């Protein structure tokens, strides 16, 4: 039998042709292994040379030699005065930042958006009436109540950001002041030491990750509570945790991306995007570097055209941050409604939970901590919409205290990963508003942590901000979102295609986009397979008919 023998030669020849087609360029295959041109990305090169060129991180001043600093500072305000005696414009610059006012100046009426405005969260809920505790993370001294003098330049805390010795610490409950003598903070069992101002001022410099992290790693009152992508593991991260901040590699400081001009730091995120335009440094070399595209450009994947096809709809973070809280756990849920229980001795207590974190605390209620958390995904135009404490709420629904803004159709939004923190927190069922409780205060005050009485605490907090409170307390379910943008993983750990391109994948339920492999056109697919099945049945019936007919004919 000559079956299929003669054309072998042709087969060989044409196999070569096919192979040529198959290898015809990376556009077609999308996964050529060569990566040697990756470093040639011009924006990346610019960014890299800014720190690696000889003498790139220069300074023209040795602060240990300044006359203004040759004294024994008794109070931190004296240090500030000394700083401002040379840096005359710094005070005014600082006082125009959200770091100082805790208000977003160009959001809404310029008074409501921000920690010290009318926004609320589902952690410790709000700052007003709780200042001395919360303002341990303020870049100032003495913000203990609403009478704080925001115009007093000497109240600016220069050191918390510019101390490079990392010995300077603010005490957790002293309204932003460091201690004057060694003091134990019972809650974390740590003794805080008075700063050695002379040593610290001699070595002031640009902030590094630990300066920013002193507050931003501990938002919500503890390590990793709030963000999920910012915790103390990001102080000196390994490459596996963050490819850019890798302490033994690129070693980016926060300001490498959070471009800073006159103490204004790019990245604030309320009603306007942190980066209104996505341009790269090759287009404008003094542009903010806050976006990935600033350095990586619009076609970031050198050898994967299919991946570049995604950049119109998918933010870089969605694939490159497969999980957050990869080293330390983060708080995922906080139920205030169970707070206030006492142990057998009638005392407040904490119940230890997983990861060495409490799962219950009399002061705060029940917690859920998680590690290696898969984000949730939303359309995001770079801004968040925030609920205000004055907004009317429907307690039958889960309330979004903030929510990613944007949609599939606005032409600006992309799919972005978020941490979703859920909670149950007090509200006023009569007025149908959320409430600000007075949590922190001395033993004889109305503070919740002094007497565990919600009504007194809320009445006190609402009076403090001049808002009505009916006297009734209910609890309502809430959610709060954080964009996930730090903890960029090495490319080997990128989110796999089918994590989203599948029916039960990460993008399940995300509207406004056709995702191949997720959106299967179930009706069409059913009709299609029905037609195929009908064809198979028809040919089987026809074949059986032929066989039966043929054997009958033979039998005749």
């Amino acid at each position, binding site marked *: *039998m*000559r*079956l*299929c*023998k*003669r*054309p072998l030669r*042709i*087969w060989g020849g*044409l196999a070569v042709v*096919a192979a040529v*087609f*198959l290898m*015809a360029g990376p556009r*077609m*295959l*999308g*996964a050529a292994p060569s990566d040697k041109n990756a470093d040639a990305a011009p924006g990346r090169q610019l960014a890299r040379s800014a720190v690696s060129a000889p003498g790139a991180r220069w300074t023209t001043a040795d602060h240990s030699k300044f006359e203004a600093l040759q004294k024994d500072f008794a109070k931190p305000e004296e240090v500030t005065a000394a700083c401002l005696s040379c840096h005359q414009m710094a005070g005014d610059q600082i006082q125009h930042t959200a770091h100082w006012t805790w208000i977003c100046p160009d959001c809404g009426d310029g008074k409501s958006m921000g920690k010290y405005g009318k926004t609320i969260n589902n952690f410790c809920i709000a700052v007003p009436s709780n200042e001395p505790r919360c303002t341990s993370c303020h870049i100032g001294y003495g913000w203990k109540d609403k009478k704080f003098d925001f115009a007093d330049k000497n109240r600016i805390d220069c050191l918390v950001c510019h101390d490079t010795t990392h010995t300077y610490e603010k005490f957790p409950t002293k309204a932003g002041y460091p201690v004057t003598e060694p003091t134990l903070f019972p809650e974390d069992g740590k003794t805080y030491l008075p700063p050695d101002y002379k040593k610290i001022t001699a070595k002031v410099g640009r902030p590094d990750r630990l300066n920013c992290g002193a507050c931003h790693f501990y938002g919500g009152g503890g390590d990793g509570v709030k963000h999920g992508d910012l915790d103390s593991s990001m102080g000196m991260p390994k490459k596996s945790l963050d490819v850019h901040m890798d302490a033994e590699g690129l070693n980016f400081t926060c300001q490498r991306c959070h471009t800073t001009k006159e103490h204004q730091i790019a990245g604030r995120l309320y009603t306007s995007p942190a980066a209104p335009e996505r341009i790269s440094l090759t287009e404008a070399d003094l542009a903010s570097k806050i976006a990935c595209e600033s350095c990586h450009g619009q076609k970031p994947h050198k050898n994967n055209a*299919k991946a*570049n*096809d995604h950049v*119109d709809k998918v933010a870089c973070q969605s694939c490159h941050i497969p999980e957050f809280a990869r080293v330390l756990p983060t708080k995922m849920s906080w139920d205030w409604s169970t707070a206030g229980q006492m142990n057998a001795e009638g005392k407040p207590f904490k119940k230890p939970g997983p990861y060495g974190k409490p799962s219950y605390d009399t002061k705060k209620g029940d917690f859920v901590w998680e590690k290696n958390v898969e984000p949730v995904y939303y359309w995001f135009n770079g801004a968040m919409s925030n609920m205000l404490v004055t907004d009317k709420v429907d307690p039958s629904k889960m309330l979004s205290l903030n929510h990613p803004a944007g949609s599939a159709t606005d032409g600006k939004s992309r799919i972005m990963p978020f941490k979703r923190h859920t909670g149950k927190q007090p509200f006023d069922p009569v007025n149908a508003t959320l409430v600000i409780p007075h949590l922190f205060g001395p033993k004889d005050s109305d503070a919740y942590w002094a007497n565990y009485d919600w009504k007194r605490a809320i009445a006190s907090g609402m009076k403090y901000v001049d808002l009505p409170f009916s006297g009734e307390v209910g609890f309502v379910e809430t959610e709060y979102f954080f964009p996930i943008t730090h903890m960029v993983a090495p490319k080997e750990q990128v989110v*796999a*295609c*089918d994590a989203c*391109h*599948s*029916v039960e994948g990460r993008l399940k339920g995300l509207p406004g*986009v*056709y995702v*191949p*492999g*997720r*959106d*299967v*056109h179930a009706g*069409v*697919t059913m*009709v*299609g*397979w029905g*037609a*195929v099945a009908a*064809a*198979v049945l*028809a*040919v089987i019936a*026809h*074949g059986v*008919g*032929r066989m039966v*007919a*043929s054997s009958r*004919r033979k039998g005749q």
Partner: protein
Amino acid sequence: MSTQGNGKFYLYTRYERFWHWFQAALIIALIATGFEVHGSFTLLGYKRAVTVHSALGITWLVAFAFFVFWVATTGEWKQYVPTTKKMFEVMRYYGYGIFQGQPHPCPKTPEAKHNPLQRLTYLALAAALLPFMMLTGLLYWLYNDWAALGLGGLGLSTVAVAHLLGAFAILVFLVVHVYMTTTGHTPLAHVKAMCTGWEDAEDGKPEDWEKRTA
């Protein structure tokens, strides 16, 4: 076209046979990877399925251009001109006569390799369904350039569902086509012919209008 003394005649040229099997392999591989991308099953893994599907699709497109050139320059296109003559007889044969052991109303001859039903089917396939799949596939592949191509109003969902419908049509064709190969005088006769090029001669002569005249 030559005939051998042993009742065989040379029907399919070397290129034609290669093209048939090459395209068959491409289409089967495209169906397999395509339905994996559609989420019907997991075989290569999503990423590799996409990569292979795209590469095969472009390969098919380029190879198809050679086929069009071949059809146009050799006069083979005449074998694809549709007709209704004898169509009913052929349909009656597959629906009835074949069970009675009756001869095929339009047996293959060197001059006329397609019966009227085949003419219509293959014309629909080569001129409509396959180009439709290439076009929708190419659009799908060029998704990010739609705005630049002036196709900004197009939706990925529309293109995807069109491509999917075409895929099911090809799959239905494939099922019937493979079955029809068994309807020769032996079950493997047609497959054998498509491999060697030599078809066993059967009785009957084509009418003049059926003959290809180069």
